[in-house]
């Protein structure tokens, strides 16, 4: 690999609180690939689902301010959380397409933003800037025999016309990454279904059947682990299992894709903040590979 590549990075609120493991593992894995995730100055909440929920322009003021501030530092902004990615990518495109709306939004902000920042997901950097073949070459501890179900949910892929990350019905970007790490990517039908999103917090009776359906679908197709890119999806997929009465052996731990990436690149589990439950699941399937790591 050539010289260190540096990308402007937007962590978002969750990655500073409930999902520190996502942030830590992403930065550590990036470093192992000679990538620097350089945190942007003065970032704030993207507005999460509320931003694109209504046509009310005021909800765009937050993302517009973030993008305006990012522009002062560069033209590309990398995100990790699927929610932030969805909001910022769409807001940036809208700012470019509708100048009149943007005039109104900018009236609230010091930052004048009219588009121009390309919002990328770390997965896109791995696929398009580094390449999965290069990553495979950098793997030190292949996750041989580890059956992982990639879970996409909604926000990474839809609406397709604006997101264009991958095929909205049959995506493969996370699977390709997992395969380059030596893992076995499990194809299961629910990987693009909705996890229940914020309903998991307030109306779990609606969200639970959705998220447990996803876990069951993955489990029945042979997944021992789920890899995600969204703290909220992770929460829903875990909570629905804790609430269920199924035996402990059926539990499918949920990890961030960056944790598996780091592990395969030879980082230690504690550098990636993997918990014992997750490690147990990984070890029970990929014993040989992890033998190297943990020794």
């Amino acid at each position, binding site marked *: 690999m050539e010289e260190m590549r540096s990308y402007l990075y937007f962590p978002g609120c969750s990655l500073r609180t409930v999902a520190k493991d996502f942030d830590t593992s992403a930065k550590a894995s990036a470093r192992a690939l000679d990538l620097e995730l350089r945190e942007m100055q003065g970032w704030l909440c993207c507005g999460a689902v509320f931003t694109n929920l209504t046509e009310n322009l005021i909800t765009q003021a937050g993302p517009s301010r973030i993008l305006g501030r990012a522009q002062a530092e560069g033209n590309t902004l990398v995100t990790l959380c699927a929610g932030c990615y969805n909001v910022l990518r769409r807001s940036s495109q809208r700012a470019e397409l509708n100048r009149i709306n943007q005039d109104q939004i900018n009236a609230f902000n010091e930052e004048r933003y009219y588009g121009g920042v390309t919002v990328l997901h770390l997965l896109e950097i791995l696929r398009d800037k580094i390449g999965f073949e290069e990553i495979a070459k950098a793997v030190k501890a292949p996750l041989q025999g580890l059956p992982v179900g990639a879970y996409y949910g909604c926000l990474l892929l839809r609406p*397709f*016309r604006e997101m264009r990350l991958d*095929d*909205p*019905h*049959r995506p493969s970007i996370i699977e390709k990454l997992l395969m380059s790490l030596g893992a076995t990517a499990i194809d299961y*039908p629910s990987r693009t279904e909705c996890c229940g999103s914020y309903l998991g917090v307030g109306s779990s009776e609606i969200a639970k059947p959705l998220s447990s359906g996803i876990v069951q679908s993955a489990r029945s197709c042979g997944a021992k682990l789920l890899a995600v890119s969204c703290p909220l999806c992770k929460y829903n997929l875990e909570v629905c299992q804790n609430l269920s009465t199924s035996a402990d052996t059926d539990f499918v731990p949920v990890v961030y894709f960056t944790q598996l990436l780091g592990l395969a690149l030879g980082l230690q589990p504690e550098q990636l903040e993997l918990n014992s439950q997750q490690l147990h699941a990984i070890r029970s399937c990929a014993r040989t590979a992890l033998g190297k790591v943990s020794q």
Partner: protein
Amino acid sequence: MKRVGVFVCHCGLNIAGTVDIKQVVEQASKHPDVAYAVDHRYLCSEPGQTLIKDAIRQHNLHAVVVAACSPAMHEVTFRNLIQTAGLNRHQCEIANIREQCSWVHDDNTTATSKAHIAVHQSVEKVKLDEPLDPITVPVTRRVLVIGGGIAGIRAALDVANSGYQVYLVEKTGSIGGRMAQLSETFPTLDCSICILGPLMAEVYRNPNIKLLRLSHVEEVNGYVGNFKVRVRQEPQYVDVTKCNSCGECTKVCPAEVPNEFDSGLTWRKAIYIPFAQAVPPAYVLDAKSCLGLLPRACGECEKACNKLGMSCINLDAAPEAHELEVGAIISATGYELYDAARLSEYGFGIYPNVMTSLEFERMLSASGPTSGLIRRPSDGHVPREVVFIQCAGQREPETALPYCSKICCMYTARHAMMFHHKVPDGQAYVFYMDIRAGGKGYEEFVKRCQEEKGLLYLRGRVAKIYEEGDKLVVKGVDTLSGKILEIRADLVVLALGMVPSQGSRQLASILKTSLDANGFFAEAHPKLRPLESPTSGIFLAGAGQAPKDIPETVAQASGAASKALNLVSHTTLEREPTVAKVTDQFCSGCGICIPSCPYEALSLNNSTKTIEVTEAVCEGCGTCVASCPSGALSLRNMTDSQLVSMITAAVSPK
């Protein structure tokens, strides 16, 4: 000074309902050049036309303005009329006070004043109109038909049966097209090949039709009535005149590839007969699938044929170029199915039991891969639960085709009915958005399927299909009951949309004609000239123009043939003389106008160093006039001075 007559039409209440006709007549008569102005309820009617004709004589009129509907409707009518009254046909102008005035305004005062202006402008224009004579060009009395499907076959037969010569160019090894692949036809359930086969045989026997298989049009030059066409015919490795279809060559051929005719459900050899009823009835060697011709890798077919003393096969055959001269061209290029693999939610290409409607069609066919039995591709079992998905890849402006392919409601009903006939204890489900069964006997057919055959019609779309065990789980919604459905199916059939056949875009550019937004051949007028392309002398038939069913295709093909006959039945052809002209004194021969002409009607005369207009080719669009930096080009009867006086009339009406 020209004595102009103004005739204002009420068009019943179409115009008179909004425009104050009396006032328009009154104001027109005040114009110094208007010798006579009058109104009539229907000027296009016989009494109306007589009124104009008599007025020309009685008031000694030199020119006429008819204020009525769009010139696209009746300009020709009134020009023909004034010709019978002894005037030059170009001394007539139409003021459009219907489509561009009464129909688009509510307010009487505004509409009346606009009608007055329109009449005034036309008076100003007609004053400066020169008398013109039509341009006469000779006509080559032969017709070229491109595409040998049902549209091309019908058109070729109609022209040939009227005694004119036809070239029928077909890109594959046999004529027949999509219709030859169909099992039955809706709503009568006629066997498709049984009604098509005789027509194909008739084409082969007709002495007026020269059939060129494995051919495509490479270049078209010339203009209406006088096209010069170069057709490239791929090497005829098998001599059509000698081959008796014995099939010995196929037996020894080692190369196997998917059979297009069976939508890839069966295999064929590199040397093969497209299908049993193929016309010409001869084998075809597909050079792409052959193990090797140059250098020769195999040659077994040739040996087998020679052993029988037939020597029909010549593996050294070369492509042939045919230079054709024709007066008219009928484009009948047909359709293909939308690529099902692009609809990733349905898993076509991943799950073997998700098939296209054309694959299912082949399976229904008695001569198809399963001899008409319905089998699952994955294991050959008889499917019990079959889901048909209508509008697959259609009416989806964001991700797939924006339009409706018109025939899928009908063929899906037929497919589901045939499935019911063949597997009586099975269950067919049809997901639909709307049922569009407009056609003679169509609605009754669909109703019969729904009510008598126990087919379950579900109004909604399918969101996702995935495999579970040996079943396909079809997740969809029934919007009538508001329920989300999950059907465990054995087989799924996608009613895919129709797209223009490959090569349409290239052919359109060769023919110098245009395509619409969806890539279908554009017609000259969607209502009044649906059989003609915008380029004179090129006619359209079949699904290459828009999705349509067999009866409509046949009707359009006969219509296009009759239009072509209309053209080639004359020895000479008259064209509108309102074309570009060059004032030599002003022309510097700079040539800027030459590339601006979409019809290649302009050329530089090397001896005079001025531009020449090929009047027979010019369509009078005026693009060159706008491009000319020295004002040397003008359009006959649409000159700059006419335009200026019309604009003046518009801004300061008298």
